[in-house]
């Protein structure tokens, strides 16, 4: 696991170990094999597991590339016969089939207006097709929190912050939760939805989360404390 190594695109990663002839190397996000070298394709911090057989780069960007099973927040932009076209911030809009909702059948289809915000799960994502999302867990058939978001505020953030917020132990969420009740839905496409009892509180929570990106846990708690006192 060694020391933190920052890489930029084009850097060659040294992946040699003692039995380099025997090992199978797994290259995770941000790495690519070119001839005999392993090169980084994104800027970020290089991580490896303790046996040095898996390598990946943790990077922070704002443009989302869909990946399967990730939760995302999307806005419905069009409705076709079979489903909705949803903007999830990726290069291509995602397709949300009309039947991809809990309890949806041919006779009982949802009727969502254009401009509706939905919380969904990426079902299909590859470089060849448009991504597809679903508003339920297709294995259990239950909504599990996915679906239409009827009120509240959504804001955009970097992908790195969204990923950190997915961890329920994220310090800013914990500090806020101790002070005000709120609901949050995090989309790994860099969008976060908040809902509280009053607009002023929602704005406070949203700004606290946005400000927390580069703060450590202690600074987060301090920032939240100051914001709540000012209120």
């Amino acid at each position, binding site marked *: 696991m060694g020391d933190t190594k920052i890489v930029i695109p084009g850097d060659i990663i040294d992946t040699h170990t003692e039995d380099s002839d025997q090992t199978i190397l797994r290259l995770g996000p941000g790495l690519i094999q070119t001839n005999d070298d392993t090169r980084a394709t994104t800027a970020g911090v290089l991580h490896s597991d303790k046996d040095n057989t898996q390598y990946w780069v943790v990077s922070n960007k704002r443009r989302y590339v869909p990946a399967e099973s990730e939760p995302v927040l999307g*806005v419905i932009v069009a409705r076709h016969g079979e489903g909705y076209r949803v903007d999830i911030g990726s290069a291509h809009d995602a397709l949300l089939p009309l039947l991809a909702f809990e309890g949806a059948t041919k006779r009982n289809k949802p009727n969502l207006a254009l401009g509706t915000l939905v919380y969904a799960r990426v079902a299909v994502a590859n470089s060849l097709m448009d991504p597809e999302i679903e508003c339920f867990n297709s294995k259990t058939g239950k909504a599990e929190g996915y679906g239409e978001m009827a*009120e509240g*505020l959504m804001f955009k953030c970097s992908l790195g912050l969204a990923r950190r917020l997915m961890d329920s132990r994220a310090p800013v969420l914990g500090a806020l939760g101790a002070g005000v009740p709120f609901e949050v839905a995090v989309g790994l496409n860099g969008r976060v939805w908040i809902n509280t009892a009053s607009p002023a509180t*929602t704005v406070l929570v949203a*700004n606290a989360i946005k400000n927390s990106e580069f703060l450590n846990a202690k600074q987060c708690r301090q920032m939240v404390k100051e914001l709540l006192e000012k209120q």
Partner: protein
Amino acid sequence: MVVDIGPSNIETAFVLEALRKNVRVDGRGIYDYRTLRISCGPTPGLAEVQLGQTRVLARVSCEVTRPSPDRPTEGLVQFSSELSNLAAPNLDASSGGRVSAQEVAISRMVERVIRQSRAIDTEALCILAGVKVWTVRVDLHFLDHGGNLMDAAAAAAIVALRHFRRPDVTVQGEEAIIHDPRERNPVPLSIHHTPVCVSFAFLGALGELAVLDPSLLEEQAQAASFTVTLNAHKEICALNKAGGVPLSPEQIQRCTQVALTKADEISDAINAALKGSSSNK
């Protein structure tokens, strides 16, 4: 190719609901500007303005051309703008040199503001009447669209113009000698005053809720927008209202009052930035 879809329904509803309780989404006051940062140089005529999330870069250049036939003793000032998907993911990259409608609208507005306010002395740009004049070109590059491109673009343009230096010219009879900047120090343009734009957005079905310096979300949810252009001498140079719901005279009055104070602050920031860069030279 992604079309501008605008915000989701709940975001627009939230902005209005919050504004009715005097709360703005980014926590500002109704008449508060976002943080303004102006930087000039290193090249003369290069200025970058950051207004919150919005970033604009202005670059001024000049060349010798023939004057316009109906104004043989005046130089020309031209504006162009580039608003590509660098600024926002839902904007099209201008394909094949074709300029988008939004780009034309913005460069026309900035041009109108600077021209109608007669900030630049175009007669001072004349070299030989009817034969040679300076054409000054201002290129605006929008690096980030966080709302209120107008104020940021106008500030960037005027800072860049004041920062710019053109080659010195000596006219002897019918001949003009244009001095190389390495031989003779280039000279500043003749600028009478510094116009500053202050923009408001009006939200709600009848445009009853006013905010200063709208963010992107507020701009997308607005029913009307209104820009006051004025200078440090408290002269109103231009008023711009393009489309949208009608506004009452009281609203216009209130906006111009607020704009007077804000324009002073922006002018101070511009002067400080220009002074700072000239002392570094």
